[in-house]
């Protein structure tokens, strides 16, 4: 414990000295640095912060040093996370390579693949995107139709992927492809890395109801992929995908309550947009809705804490498995509540007559509808709880 406290002190000092003031506040989408071949830093502060953290090897603090990681113990990594949170430091690098592909390669990749890809992720040189879903596959991720035919020294890939976040800006994609069309659904799938610069790859943004286009549809038309880009065994990609899904849901659950945009809280909105009388919100209906929301928020926050304590003490419970469902449903409820509180002020789409916060509130509301669909729909979450936790029979 004493060593850990020493590490905490050192970390705190280092962060105080090295994290620029501009990087100590929530990052709006435009403030984020995602790296990549053509990347530019959004600001000088972002550049300084990234480079210092990179040189400190704290971009991936828990990865082994051999691959560019910081080699910290889980306890040290947790202390670092706490200290970063304490000063509200922005992530120096946003990266699906860091969050998703890296962990998969560490578990399933060959030594060559680790050495080839992990350091470039950590240095922010290559930006990755993820290709799981396909048009029509929806929740049924194993219904992969994108074909990768064995052509001796390479695979020939044809098909398309959807919901490929940032595919129009990414350098590479990790995706599921069907390598044995004759096998049972989940048995003929492989996990393949593809360079987006290859001939035959293209990505088209999809416009969402929020007006944004952070997702793409990505097309593969006779794309040649070297065999060395296969991760794990051929036709065994589904087990990697499953492990990554579990990892992703945990990530979503953890990030659930942190919105990347500057968003007003419902309580603050109530103070600004609702009349009070006798120290209370005058509108009983909205006051009740706000209490319900705040109580749920508090209950979820406490359950996050409990999950952490359980993890630290090696206690098992069903709590971690509910977080994706409750967290995303809460975010939707929050947005609906904000609209209700703001009234006509929360209905502006763009242009004059509305503040930026008001316009953002509506856009975030529209975007919130994706949360219970992406990364495993709420229905899938409930199915999983019914079967895995409650042990109810397959329907």
């Amino acid at each position, binding site marked *: 414990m004493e060593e850990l406290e020493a590490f905490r002190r050192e970390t705190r000092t280092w962060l105080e000295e090295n994290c620029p003031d501009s990087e100590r506040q929530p990052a709006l989408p435009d403030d984020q640095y995602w790296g990549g071949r053509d990347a530019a830093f959004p600001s000088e502060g972002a550049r300084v912060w990234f480079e210092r953290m990179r040189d400190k090897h704290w971009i991936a603090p828990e990865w082994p040093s051999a691959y560019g990681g910081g080699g910290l113990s889980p306890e040290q990594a947790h202390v670092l996370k706490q200290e970063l949170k304490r000063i509200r430091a922005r992530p120096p690098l946003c990266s699906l390579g860091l969050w998703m592909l890296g962990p998969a390669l560490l578990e399933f990749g060959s030594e060559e693949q680790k050495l080839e890809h992990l350091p470039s992720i950590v240095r922010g040189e290559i930006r990755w995107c993820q290709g799981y*879903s396909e048009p029509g596959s*929806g*929740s*049924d991720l194993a*219904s992969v139709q994108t074909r990768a035919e064995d052509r001796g020294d390479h695979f020939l890939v044809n098909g398309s992927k*959807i*919901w490929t976040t940032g595919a129009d800006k990414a350098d590479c994609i990790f995706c599921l492809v069907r390598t044995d069309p004759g096998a049972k659904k989940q048995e003929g799938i492989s996990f393949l890395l593809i360079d987006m610069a290859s001939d035959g790859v293209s990505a088209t943004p*999809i*416009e*969402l*109801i*929020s*007006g944004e286009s952070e997702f793409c549809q990505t097309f593969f038309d006779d794309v040649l992929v070297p065999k060395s880009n296969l991760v794990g065994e051929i036709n065994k990609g589904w087990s990697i995908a499953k492990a990554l899904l579990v990892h992703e849901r945990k990530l979503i659950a953890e990030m659930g309550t942190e919105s990347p945009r500057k968003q007003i809280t419902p309580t603050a909105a109530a103070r600004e*947009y*609702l009349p009070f009388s006798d120290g209370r919100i005058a*509108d*009983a*209906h*909205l006051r009740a809705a706000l209490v319900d929301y705040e109580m749920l928020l508090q209950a979820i926050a406490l359950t996050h804490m409990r999950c952490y304590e359980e993890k630290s003490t090696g206690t098992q419970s069903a709590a971690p498995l509910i977080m994706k469902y409750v967290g995303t449903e809460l975010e*939707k409820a929050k947005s*609906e509540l904000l*609209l*209700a509180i*703001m*009234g*006509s*002020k*929360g*209905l*502006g*789409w*763009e*242009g*004059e*007559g*509305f503040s930026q916060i008001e316009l953002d509130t*509506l856009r975030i*509301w*529209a975007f919130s*509808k*994706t949360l*219970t*669909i*992406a990364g495993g*729909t*709420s*229905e899938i979450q*409930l199915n999983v709880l019914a079967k895995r936790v409650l042990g109810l029979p397959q*329907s």
Partner: protein
Amino acid sequence: MALVLNEEQRLLRDTAREFLTKNAPVAELRRLRDNCDEIGYSPSLWQEMVALGWAGIPVQEAFGGLDFGYLGLGVVLEETGRTLTPSPLFATLVLGASAIQLGGNESQKERLLPAIVAGELTLALALEEHNHHNPTGFSTSLRKENGQYLLNGSKCFVLDGHSADQCLVVARNDSGCTQSADAVCLVLVPRETDGVQCDRTLMADSRNAANLTFQNVVIEDGWIIGEGSEGQTLLEAVLDRGRVALCAEMLGLAREAFERTVDYLKERTQFGVKIGSFQALQHRAAIMLTELELCQSVVLQALTAVDEDSDQLPAMASLAKAKMNELVQTVTNEAVQMHGGIGVTDELDIGLFLKRARVCMQVLGDSGYHKDRYARLCGY
């Protein structure tokens, strides 16, 4: 027999559906939106509606109307809810014409109503001054100075305020009377009058509203409607017609979003079966069906209450608006969720229903407003 459409009303509904499906499908709203249309609705479409007689449905025959009542108007609005068709029907015909019919003097009626029926005049009601509906909390005032009426104040969330020929401005009549709640009047102000400033606002439903300010606007004699002591009563009567008519539109919106979702449940395959075979989705859909059926009865009764000039109208209007607010919220949320990934893309129309629903929920009173009002009307 007020809860079942009669033959004429059914005919009108079929005509309306055919006309709107052909001439104003949801794609037409999309076109207006993508072209950032100046007006927000199609004037030529409006003239076709006028030619079909729609602008005269609730207007008395004496002024060129069809005197076909709110049940008649309701079936048309329900259909425009299905196609999300923007038009002056709500602002001009429901809010504007009913104010004139209920509160105007003979000369005002003769001057204005035939023009509305003929499609030559559009109106907008300027009521709100805050972010929540409030038919009593406004400070826009009309006062007399040197023998002239002057209007001062500012209004927000004025539907069609940017395009209407004239605005009906709700004001407190401070020209001599006491400052009682009854001293409310509606002032007719041509949009181009000196001292009127109009700022259009772009809303979530791709329709338009406007913020209006009035600075020492000189009001001509004959522009004031409902002068005297009945202003608040007149205003509530107009607003209740607006609420009920809007509910008819919302019912159409809910039915359409629901039916599109049920169709999708029948055609979409996941895990080798139609997703409509999943019992959890079946039950959610069935529960929505029960709510839709209950709301249909409520909306029909509320429209009837207008036609019968029932003293139950305020309660029925609040019942209808509170229930429809909740229904469109539930149905559009479920529609998006049940469509899954495609449901959150702009490519699919469902998102347009979702956004229109949120605007409707705020127009003329949210759920809390109408639940509170219903309770007050019930005496608790």
